[in-house]
């Protein structure tokens, strides 16, 4: 099966800056693929290289198996939805959507049929004669989508399309975009810095930093098994303890953290004396009263450092030792209520081995 898009050792520099540093990628036809990373990591440049607006200094770009390095953007079978939408202000919604169609051999009737199909798809019926400035942000967003989708490209590239929308609109547009992608079957490449967007919409995610891909996998793989500390951090894993493996037995390994804690983790492929970081999801951290009986894999005496109320949940920061702190997330279903925990209380904190993630560095 030819991949929809393929990048081989693509490299791009702008003077001193190297936004794309030897990346390779294969994207399956019809999937929703996200490139996730912080601002400035090179994800937009990567997208522009695929789209043809930038030329790589080294490496090859393939679309549907064809090498497109020398093909200009107007001849490539892909379409870009820009971050600022780039709707033509001097044209109506209908004319915007029809813009790309005029370069194909289509009759006027065909064109207007396609345009009205699109208006139905993105639910903007009746707004065809308006100008972009007469539409709301969400409506403009949908026009931009329609304008690209109507060309039935092999690949649709979206550059942080929801960045300028408010919270509620973003949430509903996320669902719509995913729905449209599934309905049309077009390969979507979605560039974003928002974790939730990537996790909720994608079939696969590539986490990018400083021009390199750190990890490529499904949302579950990346979230539950981050390979590097940066990826874990980006996934929102806040409880990262670094240390050394001191002993390996059968199904587990013992780690001595920098703060002097002995932690047991499930077996992994690192050897004794290797450095390792582990992360525990805040939801998996449990708290018990200081003197209670408790049978759990990892258990430590600790002190409450902070109790942050966030409405539905509370975040408790617990000091394990002078140098290491850990965050627990308490909901109303947790064993202990956040109201029972005061700053300075001596408590027990613990987690089971199954909830530990070991990460590479």
């Amino acid at each position, binding site marked *: 099966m030819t991949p929809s898009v393929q990048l081989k050792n693509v490299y791009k520099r702008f003077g001193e800056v190297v936004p794309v540093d030897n990346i390779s990628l294969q994207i399956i036809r019809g999937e929703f693929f996200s490139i996730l990373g912080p601002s400035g990591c090179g994800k937009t440049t990567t997208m522009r290289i695929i789209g043809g607006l930038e030329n790589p200094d080294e490496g090859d770009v393939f679309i549907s198996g064809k090498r497109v390095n020398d093909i*200009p953007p*107007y001849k490539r079978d892909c*379409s*870009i939805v820009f971050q*600022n939408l*780039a709707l*033509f202000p*001097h044209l109506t919604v209908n004319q915007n959507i029809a813009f790309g169609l005029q*370069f194909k051999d289509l009759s006027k009737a065909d064109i207007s049929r396609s345009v009205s199909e699109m208006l139905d798809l993105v639910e903007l019926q009746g707004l065809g004669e308006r100008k972009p400035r007469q539409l709301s942000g969400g409506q403009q967003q949908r026009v931009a989508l329609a304008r690209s989708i109507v060309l039935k490209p092999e690949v649709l590239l979206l550059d942080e399309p929801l960045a300028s929308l408010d919270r509620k609109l973003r949430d509903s547009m996320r669902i719509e975009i995913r729905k449209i992608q599934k309905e049309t079957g077009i390969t979507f490449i979605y560039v974003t810095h928002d974790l939730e967007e990537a996790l909720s919409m994608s079939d696969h995610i590539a986490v990018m930093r400083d021009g390199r891909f750190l990890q490529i996998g499904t949302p579950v793989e990346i979230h539950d098994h981050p390979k590097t500390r940066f990826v874990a951090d980006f996934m929102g894993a806040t409880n990262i303890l670094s240390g050394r493996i001191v002993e390996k037995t059968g199904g587990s390994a013992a780690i001595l953290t920098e703060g002097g804690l002995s932690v047991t983790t499930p077996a992994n492929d690192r050897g004794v004396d290797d450095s390792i970081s582990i992360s525990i999801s805040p939801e998996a951290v449990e708290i018990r009263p200081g003197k209670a009986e408790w049978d759990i894999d990892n258990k430590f005496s600790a002190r409450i450092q902070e109790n942050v109320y966030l409405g539905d949940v509370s975040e408790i920061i617990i000091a394990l030792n002078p140098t290491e702190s850990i965050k627990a997330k308490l909901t109303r279903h947790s064993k202990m209520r956040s109201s029972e925990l005061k700053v300075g209380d001596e408590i027990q904190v613990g987690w089971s081995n199954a909830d530990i993630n070991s990460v590479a560095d």
Partner: protein
Amino acid sequence: MKRNIFSRLALGNKLLPIFVILVFTVTYAPLIVMMIYSFNSPGHDVQIESGYAHEYVRASEKWNGFSPVWYKRILSDKHLLRALVVSVIVTFTAVPVSIVIGTMTAFALYRFKFWGKWIFEQTLLSTLLIPEVVIGISLLLFFVGFLQIKLGIRTIFISHVAFTIPLVTLVVIARMQRMDPTLEEAAMDLGADEIATFRKVTLPLLMPAILAATLLAFPWSFNDFVISYFVAGPGSTTLPIYIYSMLKVGVSPVVNALGTVIVMFSIILVLGASLMQRLRKS
């Protein structure tokens, strides 16, 4: 509250209206006087068909009654009408040419990098700062000394194109810099090649600037005196040059009529343009 001379004089917000009235008065009073006196009847009989509008006729400061005689004299002066034709021909051919070249120049300066770009850009725009006399002399030397061609309508045309291009370029480039570059990228991504992108996206978006440049360029060329004076030849007198020669003989009330005509023409042009704008917006 600031304790300065203005608050002390307790003029408060009366100062602004006073200032505005002063500005309008200084600007328009001479024009209004000119327009009134253009209809001033001469104190004595004046020959209409003398063939020269600027035959010395004593200007009367008194109002002698309404008379359109000065306008009739304009129409009967063949040399004046000839100069008008020359001005119209020059301006209406030079301005479109400079608009096209100026827009292309703006596009090139905005979009491309090429060797010598900075020098080119700076010299082009600094021509707007060079005194017209200097431009006039240099063009004269260029035509007569270097190219060794005869002075005439052709040389006036070339000169007008030359000094209008920087103006057009400046206006268009200013607009281009405020234009969103992703619009052109979007057009290319959607299938338009460079030429189609220019035609369907860039040009329509530049239209306001191009129109503004046109409205600026027309009077700039039509009313030009200094440069035209240097490069005009015998038989290719423009209207401003002719008016100047009229004044050399003596201030004649015909000048009032001529001035009124020119002012009215400009007013009609500007009103027409803003009317068109209003119609387009609705």
